[in-house]
């Protein structure tokens, strides 16, 4: 450092990329710890059983995979309301290939997810439709597609052992769906933090004009995040269908809201330009535990709903506080 004025007062907080989200992430770790303590006190036996904890994580994994894709979409200041419906459509698309085996199911589900995501991407990036509207339309269309393709009846996947393994299997005692979720999260983290692509995504969300002037292909980036979200939907569909051993056209209802909530309480900014995969993972875990505790305590559905909504509001208010 050559000049005396350069004495850096803010050096510590800027020591590395992404460090500014730490407060939020620490706060969520604290919340999760509190929830575990609360669960232990309230329902110690059932909450702490291995079966229950794995169940929590299995359930969480499906929304978790959706939330990773959603993180990229929200980082560009967009939103994807259609992931719940696309989840059903992807499962059904795979289910139509049930006679051709597990591999065909997997390919079918992923391709359908990608294709529907790409339609969202085209509408937003090239058709300049507001993301809220484009994906709201997809929410309706994908659900209709799922119902139509399946003739409104669930398709049994009981014979697809490999698919069922993704839903219920284990590797050295760890649920396979959790492994898939963590793998998707790890890839998402690298993509977001260690590749030019991740930089561009955040740049487009933070300041599309500046991104364009710096030579970033803004439309391509916008297109790609919706396709990426579709890809995550395809992966989540495999986990979900494997767990249920069937492809249901009514599955995934309102999952988009769980995914969005997890992303936002994790600290990714709905206004774009700020994204954190670690936060999203913590947000997913927080939600899964809350959901599980409410179920274990046998609270009525309406009380569960009110509680969940309250938690989202509280978490976002907390985020305001800590980021200002």
């Amino acid at each position, binding site marked *: 450092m050559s000049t005396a004025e350069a004495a850096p007062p803010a050096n510590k907080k800027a020591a590395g990329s992404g460090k500014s989200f730490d407060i939020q992430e620490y706060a969520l770790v604290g919340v999760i710890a509190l929830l575990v303590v609360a669960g232990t006190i309230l329902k110690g036996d059932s909450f702490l059983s291995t079966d229950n904890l794995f169940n929590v994580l299995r359930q969480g994994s499906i929304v978790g995979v959706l939330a990773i894709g959603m993180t990229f979409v929200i980082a560009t200041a967009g939103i994807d309301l259609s992931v719940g419906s696309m989840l059903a459509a992807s499962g059904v698309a795979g289910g139509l290939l049930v006679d051709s085996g597990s591999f065909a199911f997997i390919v079918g589900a992923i391709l359908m997810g990608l294709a529907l995501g790409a339609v969202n991407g085209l509408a937003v990036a090239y058709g300049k439709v507001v993301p809220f509207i484009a994906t709201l339309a997809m929410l309706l269309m994908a659900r209709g597609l799922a119902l139509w393709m399946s003739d409104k009846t669930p398709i049994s996947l009981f014979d697809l052992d490999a698919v069922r393994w993704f839903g219920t299997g284990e590797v050295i005692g760890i649920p396979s769906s959790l492994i898939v979720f963590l793998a998707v999260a790890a890839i998402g983290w690298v993509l977001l933090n260690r590749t030019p692509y991740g930089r561009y995504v955040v740049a487009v969300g933070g300041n599309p004009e500046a*991104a364009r002037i710096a*030579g970033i292909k803004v439309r391509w980036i916008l297109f790609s995040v919706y396709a990426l979200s579709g890809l995550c939907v395809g992966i989540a569909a495999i986990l979900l269908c494997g767990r249920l051993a069937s492809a249901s056209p009514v599955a995934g209802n309102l999952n988009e809201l769980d995914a969005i909530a997890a992303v936002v309480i994790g600290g990714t900014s709905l206004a774009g330009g700020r994204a954190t995969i670690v936060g999203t993972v913590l947000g997913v875990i927080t939600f899964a535990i809350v959901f599980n505790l409410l179920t274990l305590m046998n609270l009525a559905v309406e009380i569960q709903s009110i509680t969940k909504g309250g938690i989202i509001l509280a978490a976002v208010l907390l985020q305001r506080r800590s980021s200002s």
Partner: protein
Amino acid sequence: MSESTAPLLEVRGITKQYPGVMALKGMDFDVRAGEVHCLLGPNGAGKSTLIKCISGVHAPTEGEILIEGKPLPVGEPSQSMALGIGTIYQELDLVEDLRVAESIFLGHEPRRLGLLDRAKMRADTTALLERLEHGDIKPDMFVRQLRPAAQQIVSIARALSRNVKLLIMDEPSAILDDGEVEILFGVVRKLTADGVGVIYISHRLDEIPRIGDRVTVLSDGRTVATGLPADTPRAQLVEKMVGRKVDQLFPDRAKVAPDADVVLDVRGVSGLPRVKECSFQVRAGEVLGIGGLVGAGRSELLRLVYGLDKPNTGEVHLDGKKLPAGNPAVAIERGMGLAPEDRKSQGLLLQWSLAKNVSVADMSRFTTAGFINLREERKQTGEKLRELNTVPDNPNRITRELSGGNQQKVVLARWLLRECRVLLLDEPTRGVDVGAKAEIYRLIAELSAAGIAVVVVSSEMEELMGLSSRILIMREGELVAEVDGSTATEVELLSHAVAPTDTNVVLEETR
């Protein structure tokens, strides 16, 4: 101004401590009723903090502020306002979708029986604007229709509507061209004749003797000279401000070989609604200036050349090859770079580190097997930042924390890193202090000496004359004149820039 006048405002030894930074380290100065007191200082000298203390946005850590001899309640913006302190910020804070009258009375609308008294609002607005001798601005016009200078006047009228005694103007001329500045000065003189005291902040040294009575120089959080007469020689002011002598603001112009290759060739480019059939060429190592009034279409022309907007007609050739229309990514690939007019909203991601902002246009340089090499990124971006004397030059710092001049250096560092062939600079020194200006000028000269073709758009004629080998003048979307940079005079440039019939200074032409 007689010495016996009691000071309207007195600032005594105020300091302001932010966490980790001492922004003000002791400031003293005073403003008398009816005078224009200019504040001068490099970016980061503490001008903004001082203003915020006076207008009550921040409370000073020590010291006192007296208004008409009485202590000002600190940290209470509404109290400051009630005592007659008005502030006009650099970025105009008018709501563009409101009408003039609504803007002026926003927040203190006259009421009758609990309802808005529109008639009184309109009548009062007319009276205020006439007092400023600008009855040509009508209460029912929309703010967005007005030119920047007229918007400034509306801001001033708004301050007057609250019975302002002390008006703080933060770089009001930054977004105005020379003709508009003259209009603004007329209004300021009118205010002071009515006994209003004005604090006037500007980076344009030439304005000080034209509008000011006295001048106070700030540097590094202190007043280094206070209450100097406004006609203090310029060199002396600059010396006080930067703490050393700046012998030469403009570097020596590089000689352009007449047979140097034409790097950028713009052929008949038009784009609605502003740009009509513009053609020009820039040779390697040349600095081409583009002057004209604000709104003449200069920034729009640069946007078309760079590919940010698609031209209706015309072509841009780079190194003899045609560029695809409306594709900045390809333009950058082929060696073009743009430092946009508004760095904050167009040039930079303010929440990003300096390293990310510098590297963003050239990520492949730091990417191995698809992954970013963060260490290499920090190292190379740090080198460029140091080369430009950016303060701070630590690539991990957040861009938002930097002053305007240093943010501009971050934008320039980006294109230096890319080693581009053509650099388009739109108002490169707007809001930049004299010290940093000289450095940016030196950099432009170095770049052109290294064979880069540079296009500079500026509203400051002096800057164009000091830098360019040729100056093009743009008027109402057309390039109307070409002047030799070394022999041009301000009068000559202005006479080309202003159309003989162009008398409407109030309304922006329809967009």
